[in-house]
C-alpha cells in the first residue's frame, strides 16, 4: 500500500521515568478503520493523544500526510477526537457544540450553522439543536460528539473508547453507526479500546499493544486465529495455550503428548475454545485430560471451563444440546481434543 496517511517512526514517549510507548513503528492507511487495543497502561491512549498533538513524542517522528507533526500544537491540526467522557460543552446548546470547530476556524455564522444543522440531520438529531446537553440521552450525546468532530470534514477521526459509558444494547447499535459512517465518509478512523469485541466487530486492522509496544498487527481474523504470542492469545481470550518440547512431530507437555506440525524445540500452541471438543471417552488424535469446573452461557454458545492436572485453565465452546448430552458435573474428568491442524503454533 502506497502513501500511508500516518507514519510513526521509532516513536518513544516517557513521562518522567515511566515509559508509555517505546520504539513504535506504525503506518495508518488512508480510509482504514484501525483499532488500537490492549490492556490499560499499554500505551494505546498515549499513541492516540500523540496523534492529536496532546502529547509530544520524546523521540522519533510522527508524520501525517507526509508532514512532520511532532511540534505542531493540537489546535493547528485537523485531528478531531471523540473523547471517552465525550467532553461536550455543557454551557452550549447542541448546535453550538457541533459548530464549535467551525467557529474556532473563523467560518461565518450563517455557513457554520448550516453545516452544523446538516450534520445534526445526518446523525438523526434534527429537532434537538436548541437542547442543552444534559437534556439528551447517552446515545444522543454520543451522536452529538460525533457530529462535533466530523463537522470540519477531517481526513481522520480519533476515537478514545467512546462507547465505554453506554449500555450494552446501545454499544451494538453505535458500532453499526460507526462502521457505516466510516465506510460512507471513506476517512480514516483510529479507534482506541480495551474491548476485543468492539475492535473485532468494527476494525479493518487491529493493533494489539502491550507495555508500550506493538504485540501484533493484523485483521481481526488473523489475530484471532493466529496469535503470535502468549500475551496476544491470552488478551484476545477464549484461547487455550499448551507449551512443551516438540520432537519429530510430537509435542510433549505436562498434559501428555499430542501430535503437532512444528519443528523440533520449545513450542507453544494455541487451540481456540470453539475448536476444542469435549468427550467422556478418549478420542483418536490430539487430546488432553482435564476436570470440569463450570459453564457460562455466552450468547453464541456455552463456554465450559476445565482445569488440567497441572492447574492450567482450558475453555471449550459447546452447544446447548452437546451440554445436555455430556451432563458434566464439577470435578469430573473429560477429554479435550481438536482436529489435526486446528491448533496454531505460536511464533511460527
Amino acid at each position, binding site marked *: 500500500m502506497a502513501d500511508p496517511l500516518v507514519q510513526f517512526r521509532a516513536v518513544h514517549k516517557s513521562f518522567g521515568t515511566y515509559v508509555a510507548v517505546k520504539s513504535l513503528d506504525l503506518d495508518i492507511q488512508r480510509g482504514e478503520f484501525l483499532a488500537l487495543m490492549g490492556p490499560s497502561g499499554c500505551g494505546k491512549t498515549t499513541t492516540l493523544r500523540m496523534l492529536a498533538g496532546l502529547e509530544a513524542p520524546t523521540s522519533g517522528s510522527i508524520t501525517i500526510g507526509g508532514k512532520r507533526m511532532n511540534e505542531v500544537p493540537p*489546535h493547528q491540526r485537523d485531528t478531531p477526537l471523540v473523547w471517552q467522557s465525550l*467532553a461536550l460543552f455543557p454551557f*452550549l446548546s447542541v448546535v453550538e457544540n457541533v459548530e*464549535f470547530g467551525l467557529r*474556532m476556524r473563523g467560518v461565518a455564522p450563517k455557513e457554520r450553522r448550516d453545516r452544523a444543522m446538516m450534520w445534526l440531520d445526518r446523525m438523526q438529531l434534527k429537532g434537538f439543536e436548541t437542547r442543552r446537553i444534559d437534556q439528551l440521552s447517552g446515545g444522543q450525546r454520543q451522536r452529538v460528539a460525533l457530529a462535533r468532530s466530523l463537522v470540519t470534514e477531517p481526513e481522520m477521526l480519533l476515537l478514545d473508547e467512546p462507547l465505554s459509558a453506554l449500555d450494552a444494547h446501545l454499544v451494538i447499535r453505535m458500532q453499526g453507526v460507526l462502521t457505516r459512517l466510516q465506510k460512507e465518509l471513506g476517512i480514516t478512523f483510529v479507534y482506541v479500546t480495551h474491548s476485543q469485541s468492539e475492535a473485532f466487530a468494527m476494525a479493518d486492522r487491529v493493533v494489539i499493544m502491550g507495555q508500550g509496544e506493538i504485540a501484533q498487527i493484523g485483521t481481526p481474523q488473523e489475530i484471532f486465529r493466529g496469535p503470535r504470542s502468549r500475551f496476544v492469545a491470552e488478551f484476545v481470550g477464549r484461547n487455550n495455550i499448551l507449551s512443551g518440547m516438540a520432537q519429530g512431530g510430537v509435542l510433549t507437555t505436562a498434559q501428555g503428548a499430542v501430535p503437532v506440525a512444528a519443528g523440533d524445540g520449545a513450542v507453544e500452541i494455541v487451540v481456540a475454545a470453539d475448536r476444542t471438543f469435549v468427550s467422556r471417552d478418549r478420542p483418536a488424535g490430539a487430546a488432553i485430560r482435564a476436570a470440569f469446573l463450570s459453564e457460562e452461557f455466552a450468547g453464541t454458545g456455552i463456554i465450559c471451563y476445565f482445569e488440567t492436572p497441572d492447574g492450567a485453565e482450558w475453555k471449550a465452546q459447546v452447544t446447548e444440546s452437546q451440554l445436555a448430552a455430556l451432563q458434566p458435573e464439577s470435578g469430573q474428568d473429560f477429554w479435550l481434543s481438536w482436529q489435526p491442524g486446528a491448533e496454531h503454533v505460536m511464533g511460527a
Partner: protein
Amino acid sequence: MKALGLLGRVYLAALFVFIFAPIAASVVFSFNSDRFPTLPLGSFTTDWYARAFSRPEVWEAIGNSLAVAAVTAVLATFIGFATAYTDFRYGFRFKQAYLALALLPPTLPLVILGLAMLAWLSRIGLSGTLSGIVIAHVVLASPFAMAICRLRLSQMDPALEAAAWNLGSSPWGAMRHVILPFCAPALVSALCLTAAVSFDEFIVAWFVSGLNRTVPVMILEILQGNVDPQINAIGTVVFLTSMSLVIAAQFLIFRRRSNG
C-alpha cells in the same frame, strides 16, 4: 434527608433567633420614633433614615465603600480565578504550600493584618487613600474568590479544555470560549461575595482609611459621639446590601450545581 424531630426544630428556631434577633432589633428600632431602644415601641417613623441620609459625610462614606467594594471585587475575583486556574491546570512542586499560602489571609487575626497593612501602606505612601483600602481588601477577599472558582473548576471535565484545543481553539481561545463561560456563574458569585466582604469589613479599613472613611468606619465614629437611631438606619442599609450580595452569590453557586 431525615426530617427533624420536634427538639431539633426548636433548637434550629432558637439558633436563628439568637443570630438574627440583634439584626432584627436594629431594623425595628430604625423605624421607631423613640430616641432610645426601649419597649414598648413608640410610633413608626422614617425620620432617622431622612436624617442619616441628609448628612453629606454619610453619602461620602457610602460612595467610598461602593467604589472600594467594586474595585476590590474585580481585582480579587481576577486574582482568585487565576490562582484557582493555576491549581487546576498545572502540577508543580510545593503546590500544597502554594495553596496554603493562597488561603492564608482570612485566617490571620484582622488586627495584625490591619497593623501590618498600615505599616506597609504608609511605607509606600498609600496609607489613608482609597487605593490603600482596596489593596488591603483584595488581600482579604481573594481567597474567597479562589475558593469559589476552585469549586467550579473541580466540577469541570478536565477533557473540556483539551477538547477545545482539539477543535481548533488556541490556548487563549479555549480560555475565552470554554473555561470562562464554564466558570461564569462562579465568577459572578465571586464578584458578589468579595464585594460583600469589602463592603462590610471594618477592622482593616479602620487601620488604613485615614480621612477617606468607608461606611463601617463612619458608623463607629458616629457611635463614639453618641448613640443615635441613625446608626440603626445606616446599619439596616448596610445589612441589606451585604445580604443581597451574599444571597446572590449563594444562589448562583447552588443553581449551577443542580444542573451543571
